[in-house]
């Protein structure tokens, strides 16, 4: 099963990016192969609806869950519609996020935790 983590950098010790739609990278971890794929977010600087576009792109990556900091209502709706689990409010490194994920130490979000446009100008 694959999980995507919003990340400020390309390394496993990068901090989890608190933005969703406008984060620079997603690190996609596959617990079957232990492989970590770097996915630069092509929608980070899109003018409108970056959360929606980012969520849509992630649906094509075959992921089952995402771990992020903040996530707004539009991106949440897209991921929810595609049955992707959302873990929000995570603070720490990607390594810590993966560790928690492997141990089942997380809870799925049932609603977005910020309003639209929260990631602009951060």
């Amino acid at each position, binding site marked *: 099963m694959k999980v995507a983590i919003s990340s400020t950098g390309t390394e496993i010790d990068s901090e989890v990016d608190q933005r969703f739609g406008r984060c620079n990278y997603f690190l996609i971890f596959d617990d079957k192969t232990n492989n970590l794929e770097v996915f630069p977010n092509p929608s980070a600087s*899109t*003018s*409108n*609806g*970056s959360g*929606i*576009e980012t969520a*849509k792109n992630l*649906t094509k990556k075959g992921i089952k869950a995402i771990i992020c900091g903040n996530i707004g209502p*539009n991106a949440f*709706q*897209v991921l929810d*519609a*595609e*049955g992707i689990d959302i873990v929000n409010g995570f603070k720490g490194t990607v390594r810590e996020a993966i560790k928690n994920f492997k141990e089942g130490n997380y809870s799925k979000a049932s609603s977005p935790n910020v309003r*639209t446009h929260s990631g602009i100008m951060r």
Partner: protein
Amino acid sequence: MILSIASGKGGTGKTTVSVNLALSLGQVQLIDCDVEEPNDNIFIKADIEGSQDVSVEIPQIDPERCLNCGACANFCNFNAIVDLPSGIKIFPSLCHSCGGCKLVCQNDAISWKDKKIGYIRRGKKDDILFYDGFLDVGESRPTPIIKSLKYQIGTDIDTILDCPPGTSCSFLETVNGSDFCILVTEQTPFGFNDLKIAVEALKKMDIPFGVVINRDGIGDDEIEIFCKKETIPILLKIPYNKDIAKLYSKGESFIDCFPEISRQLVYTFYSIKSMIT
């Protein structure tokens, strides 16, 4: 004459100039186009006589006819339509009502429905005809409300348009079609920077303009040097005065306490009018 009052930078005194000019003139149409934060009526205190909803058209998809081809989502530049494996999804608040999705739909699956995004109000204070508009909370597109407000512009009366701050769509929508634009500024680096951006925009739009310096006496003389170089008329300087600020903070105009500035505003107005006609 349609006179718009704009600034670039927020908080320089658009509302101060607009409401005090309107009250000084007495017989005029005042339209508060800052639909995200209208506050002219705090000062005008008009009796509101009516209001009218403003709607935009957004697409709706007939699931019977939709082939899930994704052409509409592909066309949409604003991510208002996305095609997901689970089906097409519409985000109405991102839609700009361009109509492109309906044009590219191969199977005529898209129709329009109205969505309310705000409202406009009309009122009266003595001989001032007053209008303002309100964008609903959570809506991102102020321009349709500004358009609705501008439909109210009369031909037999002078009109003052109080612009939203900035130089983005809402500013452009408001000043478009104005006979003249007053740029209210202050002598600070921010005021100067944003003034230059607004000047660029107005030049491109071919709208004649002049500058009113508010809170004159603070800051430096960069703006005056710039205006001289660019041959932009400085129409009026309103002095920095705590009593003006105090009146503003109470929601009161300054025309009774500062009759001289009130007269200068009227003079400025008629100078502009004689200049453009």
